[in-house]
């Protein structure tokens, strides 16, 4: 069995190099909770490169514009249609932000207007390793303490053959999980557990 590799997608528009310590926290959790063998370093792969097709899981995030060039668009579509899994996380945690608007437009152009859909909170994703009865866990960035918390209580996905191929979050998990791994021990509950679910779903569905 090939060890699991955390692949980050590099794209030419916007900014792809966000939350640099997030992957190491997720990999740490995979080692802690599962028996999945892992590569300890994340791998950055250009979306223009066909190297992407060697890996079943990839991550894409940013704050800014997402506008794929022809090669990027072609690779994204091929990867998704051929069984790849992309976890896309909006660093603005804002459904009106530039990343959200432009990424959703890209998905509309590639997969059609109705492809990206909200998934129900009882989806298999929420039971693929740990159980999340109430759907996606809330991040601290959504709870602003003023009582007008903008919590996105759903995730969206594009499903291919009944399986999530593009998982899309406006919750900014990347930022939530981006900390020195030594500080994990101070959390009341390890907040990367949902990340384990995402990876386990991607590897087993």
């Amino acid at each position, binding site marked *: 069995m090939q060890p699991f590799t955390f692949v980050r997608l590099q794209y030419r528009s916007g900014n792809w190099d966000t939350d640099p310590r997030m992957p190491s926290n997720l990999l740490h959790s995979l080692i802690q909770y599962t028996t999945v063998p892992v590569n300890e370093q994340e791998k950055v792969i250009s979306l223009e490169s066909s190297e992407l097709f060697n890996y079943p899981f990839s991550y894409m995030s940013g*704050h800014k514009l997402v506008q794929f060039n022809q090669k990027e668009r072609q690779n994204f579509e091929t990867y998704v249609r051929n069984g790849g899994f992309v976890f896309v996380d909006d*660093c*603005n945690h804002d459904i009106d932000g530039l990343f959200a608007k432009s990424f959703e437009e890209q998905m509309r152009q590639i997969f059609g207007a109705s492809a990206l859909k909200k998934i129900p909170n009882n989806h298999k994703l929420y039971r693929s390793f740990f159980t999340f009865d109430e759907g996606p866990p809330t991040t*601290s*960035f959504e*709870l*602003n*303490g*003023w009582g007008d918390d903008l919590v996105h209580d759903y995730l969206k996905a594009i499903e291919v053959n009944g399986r999530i191929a593009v998982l899309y979050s406006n919750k900014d998990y990347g*930022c939530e999980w*981006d*900390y*020195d791994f*030594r*500080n994990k021990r*101070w*959390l*009341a509950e390890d907040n990367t557990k949902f990340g384990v679910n995402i990876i386990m779903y991607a590897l087993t569905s």
Partner: protein
Amino acid sequence: MAILSKEEAQAILKKALGFSKADECEITLNGNTGGNIRYARNEVSTSGAEENVSLAVESRFGKRSGVATINEFDDKSLEKVIRRSEEIARLAPESPEYVELLGPQEYITTKAHFDSTAKIDPAFRADAAAKSIKAATDKGLTAAGFLEHYTNFTAKMNNKGLFAYHPSTYVDFSVTMRTEDGTGSGYVTQDFSDVSKLDTGKASEIAAQKAATSRNAKALEPGKYTVILEPAASIDLLQNMFYNMDQRNAEEGRSFLSKPGGKSKVGEKLVDERITVYSDPAHPEVPEAPFAGDGRPQKKVTWIDKGVVKNLYNTRYWASNKGAVSVPPPSNIIMEGGNQSLEDMIKSTKRGILVTRLWYIRSVDPQTLLYTGLTRDGTFYIENGKIQYPVKNFRFNESPVIMLNNLEALGKPQRINGSLIPPMKIRDFTFTSLSDAV
């Protein structure tokens, strides 16, 4: 009347104790005189003075205890308050955590009383406010400030032979300044035992500078940032941490120092090894009483030594119950720092945020010591070693334990809220949303 000398206090306490028929009796006498001045919109709005002395008696019969208080000191009144505490004691249920009163104790000497502060008069207060207001009007700003000062004494005596007396003085000053258009705000706070160290004009210039340069703040995206926390920004979080180092809370599983199975984290490395924290009532900058409220001697105690938890405080009951050394809670916090100035810290920052003050702090999770609150009164973006522009205020979600693990640099400790705290540079401080408040 308000400030009694050691001999005067002793005479009243002895007389009152003479009326006691209880098994155990402890009497505490507290007095203060003080004054204050308040100003807003660059005009003084309130000025006042106050003085009070009060006496509290705790009488005990076996494990039953009752407390009564009074502020009249003629013989009849003293007898009356003793009798009342005895009546209450007889009616009270037995305390399951009864511990006998302390006998005679040895106390170190601490110098916390300064004539300079005791002599503050209304003219001094008016002048202090005028200097602060001038710092505002010179820059076309609006100041709202408060200065208060106290001369205190506390004396305690019981029928087991304990006697303690401690005089002290204290002055506290704070001012907020706003620009006329209301888009800029600055703040400064200082407190001293010796008022000759306070220059309200000079202090106010800091607030004025912050206000004048914080107009038209830009919005930055919330997230994890390197922050430089001035002592006024970190003090509340740190006090919440150090005043939560109770042994019982830790051993009963209610604190950030709890370990499973009724153990605490004493002896474990909790934070960065550059963090050493102690309390010392004899420290000349932050002098405090050499005894705790229950009469236990206060001396230098190291709470965290090079990042490792060394001591927890306890009640006398918990200490005897657990066979632990009896340690009273700290009366001040002294955190060792480094030699860097705030300017040095800014210079060495590639990208970060300078925080003047955190306020409205509320507890989110006591077991991880997670707090939330807001920045206020001067928040600035730093890039390439320079303050670039003011930024909108943020809400934060952070634990002081995590904060002290993410330490980058320490500055020179400054007195604040009766403690000594260095400015700190911390990486990955979590700002979770923006606030429209100025």
